């Protein structure tokens, strides 16, 4: 074999050591992946991604809690005053600034994932907090009538799930955009 002078001490065996250890490391890492990935949501869990709900019986001012993807979801038919207070909230006061119109498809209907963005409790429908929305009983986060965090430890607004109105009184929660399927499973 032709060696250049500066790596004259590098033998064929050194190369084999490095190559085989590298291959072993990569292989071990790849073997680890199924053991890690098995803990991610399974196919049947991912399949629970859409829920249809009939809005007709909900009266203005009422909040209904339904289940979607094992998570509670608030559907709130807001009164005109609640809509106004949500729209008029000064942006500068918001911890996680977002306009009310970006959080609803129809101003009357507020649809939110009902898990507090702090540590996952369900904010209370009974105690509406300082801003007329929700108060989380666990650690005292206050949300406004748009589900935005206004006071307390939660870092973000209540999440808006993907949804679509099928008719004026029917909503499909989880509709758009579709969560990535699992193509690797074929």
């Amino acid at each position: 074999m032709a060696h250049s002078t500066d790596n004259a001490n590098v033998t064929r065996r050194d190369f084999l050591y490095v190559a085989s250890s590298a291959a072993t490391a990569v292989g071990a890492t790849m073997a680890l992946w199924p053991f890690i990935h098995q803990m991610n949501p399974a196919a049947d869990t991912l399949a629970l991604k859409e829920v249809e709900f009939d809005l007709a019986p909900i009266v203005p001012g009422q909040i209904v809690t339904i289940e979607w993807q094992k998570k509670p979801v608030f559907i709130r038919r807001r009164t005109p005053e609640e809509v106004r207070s949500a729209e008029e909230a000064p942006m500068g006061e918001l911890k996680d600034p977002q306009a009310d119109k970006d959080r609803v498809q129809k101003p009357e209907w507020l649809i939110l994932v009902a898990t507090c963005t702090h540590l996952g409790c369900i904010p209370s429908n009974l105690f509406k907090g300082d801003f007329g929305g929700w108060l989380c009983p666990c650690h005292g986060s206050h949300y406004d009538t748009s589900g935005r965090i206004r006071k307390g430890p939660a870092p973000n607004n209540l999440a808006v799930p993907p949804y679509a109105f099928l008719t004026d009184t029917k909503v499909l929660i989880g509709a758009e955009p579709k969560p990535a399927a699992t193509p690797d499973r074929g």
Partner: protein
Amino acid sequence: MSHGNYTYKPTNAFTKWLDTRLPIIRLMDESMMQFPTPKNLNYWFAFGAILTFMLVVQIISGVVLAMHYVPHETLAFNSVERIMRDVNYGWLLRYMHSNGASMFFIAVYIHIFRGYYYGSYKAPREVLWLLGIVIYLLLMATGFLGYTLPWGQMSFWGATVITNFFSAIPVVGPSITEWLWGSFAVDNATLQRFFSLHYLLPFVIAGVVVLHIWALHVPGNNNPLGIDVKGPADTVAFHPYYTTKDLFALVVFTMIFSYFIFFNPNAMGHTDNYIPANRLVTPPHIVPEWYYLPFYAILRSVPDKLIGVILMFSAIFVWALLPWLDTSRVRSAKFRPIFRQLFYILLVVVWLLGMLGQQTPDGNFDFYGAELPISKLFLSQFLTLYYFVHFLVLIPVVGLMETPLPVPESIAKAVLAKTGGSTKPAAAVRSPETRV
């Protein structure tokens, strides 16, 4: 211990044969019988033996409970109630296991604070101390996982809050949380994996306990004086002296344990956990098990999620830094007048944090029924600040500033000085029927 003169001699043909092949009897004899132990250990040093006993109790009661428990979201709660009502002695086994967890933590906290008071973390016992911290973290994880299994309201929502700690991690937090859950919320997948891990971790703990005891047996026990063993006069054999002393402490401890099992089995639990888990209703007030309360109070003291979680984990991690934060070369608090006061202040601070963790986060502090004119938020922030100042500022500074009291020359001399010189024991041996 290096200066131990071990004298194990296999006596019969079998033990001689075994000793040259697997010297396990020799190992047991040297580490559990002859092992030279400082002669001045007090009862605070009995908790290592008590903890070993509790680990065995938890593993045995847990293994048999697993024969009846069903880790499934629709069956778990009812299977626990079936254990309570229908399984022969099921109530005893479950109360033993649930109260056993609390007793385990009582013992481990005494054990940790004993180590703190007598400086057992200082050289050459740093690795011993770090292994202890690892065991404590594993215990917390195991306790948390086990508390989820009955699938009551506190199980479910406690699991929700604690798994959400990981969602505070920037960017990847939510994915990690879903990975932990195996779903989009705490779910059946979560329950099943928690059961699997709850069964596994105690054996991991047992493994680390072996390392902990190994690391103890290299430098030998610390002692209430915190001074090194100088020679054979300072020690006695572990058996029968400390086997007997530990056994007596264990009997007393078991009596307290039995009081809870038989007369007050739900004192350390939460009534809401007898309500089946409901993912659509959060209980008005979520509290963790009592042994996590001080850390829970630290978490809630900060109105920022990520910082709260970081502070809470730091509050545990700071104990691992103790060997390097404490600048004093004197081990025992007996000879450190200022450190001793800081120790007791820390005990009070941790207790108050625990009380805060138990209470709702808003309003004024409720001190055993009396409402003090101080808001809980302010008090918990003040105490959290003090907690970290204690470890990160006071302990390093006091070690440098403090003038320690004179330390005795040897354990033997200190022991004899305490009993009034060497004549008394000798006189007692000469005429044991009279009081000396």
